[in-house]
């Protein structure tokens, strides 16, 4: 197990390095750098000497190798630098937004899990009956409805029926839980629906698969109470892939909030990402991408370890 863990950990390094190189190159390929975008945005002509001075201040005059090297050195020592646009430390900028996005993501995950596992199991147990059909339509519709539009529909319904819209300013949950929830529950519902649809489909198909296994027939044949067959024998074995899907979707959710945050005017990671990409704020984009991709890679790693720990048949390398 230890060898496997180390092996998997080492495999994360080339992937992360690849992400870093890719982001670095992509950013440098963008038309117009931050200095041009910022100084020329106001219109009129700017003295080339000012532009050069600004580039020098931000370290953009150095060679690409040098810039990459500086960034890598900073990353390895835990220094993410400062935002090129606001001048504040990247860590601070991200931390103030991470809280909000994390909360929405966690709420959506809880919602999705609570809905998906019972619904998916129910659909599998009553395969091809009307219960199954309804749940399948619910799930397939969840994949079709764009989350951001669902959010807009929530706002529309709330506005037209209660003459109320969710608050626009963020209040941390430890300051005023009610205010906080009345703002964040809607985006969580909007992204949670799609998420639960994915997990419901996964649950249904794995439970169906497990129910056809020999040991389920054996359990039934020896007279185990049907409810126990489902809860002890079937569910336990079916949950592993479901947990995987939930974990991976969670990692994607952090980035996937990008559009929904715009609808609710939430100042989260997604909004920050869109802003910084369009501004060409290299240090911020690099840090955000490394964070999101790193998170995803880590969850992947954790899921693999979980598999190996739970299923003794899996031992690679």
């Amino acid at each position, binding site marked *: 197990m230890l060898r496997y863990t180390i092996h998997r950990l080492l495999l994360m390094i*080339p*992937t992360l390095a*690849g*992400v870093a190189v*890719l*982001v670095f190159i*992509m*950013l440098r*390929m*963008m*038309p117009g750098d931050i200095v041009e975008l910022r100084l020329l945005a106001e219109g009129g002509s700017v003295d080339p000497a000012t532009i050069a001075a600004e580039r020098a201040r931000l370290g953009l005059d150095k060679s690409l190798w040098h810039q990459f090297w500086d960034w890598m050195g900073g990353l390895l020592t835990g220094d993410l630098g400062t935002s090129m646009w606001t001048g504040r430390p990247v860590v601070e900028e991200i931390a103030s937004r991470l809280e909000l996005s994390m909360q929405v993501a966690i709420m959506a995950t809880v919602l999705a899990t609570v809905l998906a596992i019972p619904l998916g199991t129910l659909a599998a147990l009553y395969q091809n009956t009307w219960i199954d059909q309804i749940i399948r339509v619910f799930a*397939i*519709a969840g*994949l*079709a*409805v*764009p989350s*951001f*539009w669902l959010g*807009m*529909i929530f*706002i*529309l319904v709330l*506005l*037209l029926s209660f003459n109320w819209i969710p608050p626009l300013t963020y209040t941390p949950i430890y300051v005023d839980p009610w205010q906080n929830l009345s703002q964040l529950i809607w985006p969580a519902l909007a992204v949670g629906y799609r998420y639960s649809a994915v997990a419901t489909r996964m649950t249904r198909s794995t439970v169906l698969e497990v129910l056809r296994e020999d040991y389920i027939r054996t359990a039934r044949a020896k007279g185990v109470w049907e409810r126990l067959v489902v809860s002890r024998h079937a569910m336990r074995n079916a949950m592993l892939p479901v947990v995987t899907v939930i974990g991976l979707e969670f*990692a*994607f959710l*952090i*980035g*996937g909030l*990008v*559009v929904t945050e*715009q*609808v609710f005017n939430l100042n989260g990671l997604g909004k920050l*990402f*869109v802003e910084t*990409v*369009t501004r060409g704020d290299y240090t911020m*984009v690099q840090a955000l*991408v490394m964070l*999101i*991709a790193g998170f*995803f*890679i880590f969850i*992947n790693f954790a899921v693999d370890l979980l598999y190996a720990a739970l299923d003794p048949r899996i031992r690679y390398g």
Partner: protein
Amino acid sequence: MAAVPAPEITYKVPKRRHPVVQFALTQPLGTAGLLIIIVMFVAGVFAPWVAPYDPLALDYGAMLAAPSWEHWLGTDAFGRDVFSRIIFGARTALMVGFLSSIIGCTVGAVIGVVSAYFGGRIDMVVQRLMDVLLSFPIIVLALAVVTVLGKWKVLGLDMNLIVAIAIPMVPKVARVVRSSALAIREMPYIDAARAAGFSHSRIMFRHIIPNVVAPYLIMLTAFVAQAILLEASLSFLGLGVTEPSAAWGLMLSGSSQEFYREAPWMIIFPGVAISLAVFAFNLFGDSLRDWLDPKLKL
């Protein structure tokens, strides 16, 4: 003595139906999806004849008009007919959806086959590269690519958008196709082809690729649905199709959000169009998988 008549032997030959009929009979949901897709196609291709108004025509006399006989789904803040814009939007959605899926799936399939066929070090490197691409959330990758490429129009199509939507598909397709191709590589007829002295490219393109067509087609339909969603999201963010073109995601962005109360039809109908289109492609894709290759996992 009358001769005993020879017993008549009847063979029950199962009737062979046309595959399209067979698909319609066994996959009613998928057929429903296919019908919606066909309606979308007809509307998109014949948009100028189907749409009652010019999608770009401004009519300041009829701004924010509610749905009526004249404007079935109302008008937007510039007095443009929402129904006509949705019909022209189908054109945009299908063009972007199909082109990006065809590009993404084809590139992914070629990478998957090459990687599986050569194996060894090439396979290792290619798989690591695919891992890197997979660790980006789709929208983050697409957003970055769209910005990097900037405005790039070919024949009136936003190529930067199409490429940005296609790139996140590549690693997924490559993975699935690679695993199919790995099994095919071990088949005796590949050994035979090799023994006959065929070139690598001939073996890959003539012997392996035809055998991964089923997963390729299934993924293609599934990804058209995803591409339509992604196009809508990017256009909504203002990074995809831009004004004044008609696109569903674009119709939801900008001014329509200022008129929640005055003109809810501007919010409702484009979203219904997106959902219906994605729903149809998902239904059809699911059924296609059940029909062609039930064991394929995406």
